[in-house]
């Protein structure tokens, strides 16, 4: 897949056009348009405060929970406008999962953390089914071997890296179509990071993945497409190889070579 040829990737899963986000008066995202491919990893990079998280949160309408936040423009998930009046954000979030920047497991057991999503969406009616979902998600998140003997222990008792993998397991338990990951590795050591990157590579077969990262190497390693954000504007969006070898914008060039940010 990492041949840099966008046309070979899956179809467009999410397509955003002219998205603007305002926090009260502050204009945080300015006219961003982007097409996110299915069964591929798209990376968002850019200096701190440039609006990566804000844009990511538009895709599952998490910004709805912020009173002062206003989103305009259109975002289509498989051709459907997610901001339409008739769309229930709860329904949307079941299809667009999210892993947050800071690990935030529920203060419940490890098992319940993973089982919660499937339970509320009625994906499993009996215990064996639920057990199977929990096991497979924990395996996919490369956490099963570490926690299989203490599934009833609180998820908050795990280490930071384990918590983040637990959050990934929780996010994929609802079988979303799109997985949004906001700096999933910022709290992880290199080994756990490598695991998560492997995981992302595997998950790519089934989901469209959007990952925000501050690590240029990580973006280069895991993604097929990369978008560079700067001061609320999407400066450049292209194949990852192209961005990292031959960016067309001066600002991108400066950023990836470490001249600012």
């Amino acid at each position, binding site marked *: 897949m990492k041949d840099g040829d966008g046309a070979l990737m899956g179809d467009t899963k999410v397509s955003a056009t002219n998205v603007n986000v305002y926090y009260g008066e502050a204009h945080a995202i300015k006219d961003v348009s982007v097409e996110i491919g299915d069964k591929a990893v798209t990376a968002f990079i850019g200096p701190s405060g440039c609006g990566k998280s804000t844009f990511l949160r538009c895709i599952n309408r998490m910004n709805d929970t912020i009173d002062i936040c206003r989103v305009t423009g259109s975002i289509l998930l498989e051709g459907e406008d997610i901001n339409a009046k008739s769309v229930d954000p*709860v329904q949307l979030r079941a299809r667009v999962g999210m892993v*947050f920047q800071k690990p935030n*497991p529920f203060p419940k057991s490890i098992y319940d953390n993973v089982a*919660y*999503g499937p339970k*509320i969406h009625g994906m499993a009616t009996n215990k064996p089914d639920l057990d199977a979902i929990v096991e497979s998600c924990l395996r996919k998140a490369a956490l099963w071997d570490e926690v299989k003997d203490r599934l009833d222990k609180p998820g*908050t008792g795990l280490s930071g890296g384990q918590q983040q993998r637990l959050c990934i397991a*929780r*996010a994929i338990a609802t079988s979303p179509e799109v997985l949004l990951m906001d700096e999933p590795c910022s709290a992880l050591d290199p080994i756990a990071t490598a695991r998560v990157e492997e995981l992302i590579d595997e998950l790519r077969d089934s989901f469209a993945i959007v990952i925000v990262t501050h690590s240029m190497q990580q973006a280069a390693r895991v993604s097929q497409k990369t978008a560079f954000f700067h001061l609320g504007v999407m400066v450049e969006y292209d194949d990852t190889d192209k961005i990292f070898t031959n960016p067309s914008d001066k600002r991108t060039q400066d950023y990836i070579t470490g001249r600012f940010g």
Partner: protein
Amino acid sequence: MADIAAPRRAASLAEVTPSLKKRRAAEARFKAYGIAAISVALFFLVALLSTVFYNGASAFQQTSIRLTVDLKQDVIDPQGRNTADAVMTGNVFRWGGLVDEALLSQLGIDPNDELLAADAQKLISGGARIYLRDYVAENLDQIGTKQEIWFLADGVVDAFMKGSISEETEESRRPIKDRQIAMLRQLEEAGALEKKFNTGLFTFGASSRAETAGVGAAMVGSMYMMLVVLALALPIGVAASIYLEEFAPKNRWTDLIEVNINNLAAVPSIVFGILGLAVFINFFGLPRSAALVGGLVLTLMTLPTIIIATRASLKAVPPSIREAALGVGASKMQAVFHHVLPLAMPGILTGTIIGLAQALGETAPLLMIGMVAFIADIPSGPTDPATALPVQIFMWANMAERAFVERTSAAIIVLLGFLLIMNVTAILLRKRFERRW
């Protein structure tokens, strides 16, 4: 970085520079203030508790006199029906006669010596005949036999036995005569005079006779009110807080509501009493002096406390938990009820119990709605006339007799006991539900 001034350093770590000295002195002063403040607070607490216990401890014992009563069939129930009904109806004075007879024969006094007999009769509580009637009604099979029964002694006898009336005082200046004291000594020698645990304190209602006055009715009244408060204030308060904290838009109206709720918590409690009088009694026509009305008034008083505590504990739940729940596709309501509320529970419960404890000790609004009545019978429901523990304390505190003084303190001890139990419950609940996140 050269332009940042280097701090002036002491030559050695151990050197005491003037600034260090000043800092240490300031610290020592601050600690001294703190210790002084705590000592003052502790001193008053100890002084308060020790006076209450010193005055009240004796009320937990009550002097009783044992008499051998001949439960004569022809006096109790000449028709020989031997039913509880027959026992309860009829002339109450027949019971007094039986008690007197037993007392006089115990003391070996000739019933015809009327003056001596009258003095002897005063040793036994005026409530003895009612006690005997109730005793027989429960032990119908004992009619026609002789039974040893413990009767409460008169309040004066009790005070004398507890040493609050001194024998040294001149006879004319104390309420108990020398001959009566002699009779008591006689009873004591026969083992027929004892101080026993005062169960009556917890079972009797109000009474003008100190020995048959207890906090039983007041305790039941307080309990009904607490139930009303718990049943109304907890759900209403928690629902209101959840709505305000999690669902309501933040705008001028909700700000206004918030300010008003905070102000409501500071409204003097007697104002709630006036409100209750005007609304619940005069407008809705609910019965006066009823625990239901008292409970409603206390609910109004407790609501702001519960709402403020609940909102604070909801606020304390980290937003990341809500985001996590919403992120996996939970609805707002699911996020609140599955994740936020359980985490806020310890705070909510603590706030509720503190609110209840405040309500339990509240007197002024209850006076306004007529709960200051003389309630001799234990109320059988929340609409019966009732009184409350603090009101009972207030009423007893106005009585001059020594026996009521000790009962006032005893009632305070009971009230403090309940508050202690509630606070311990709050702590245990908090411990039990506390979770890390």
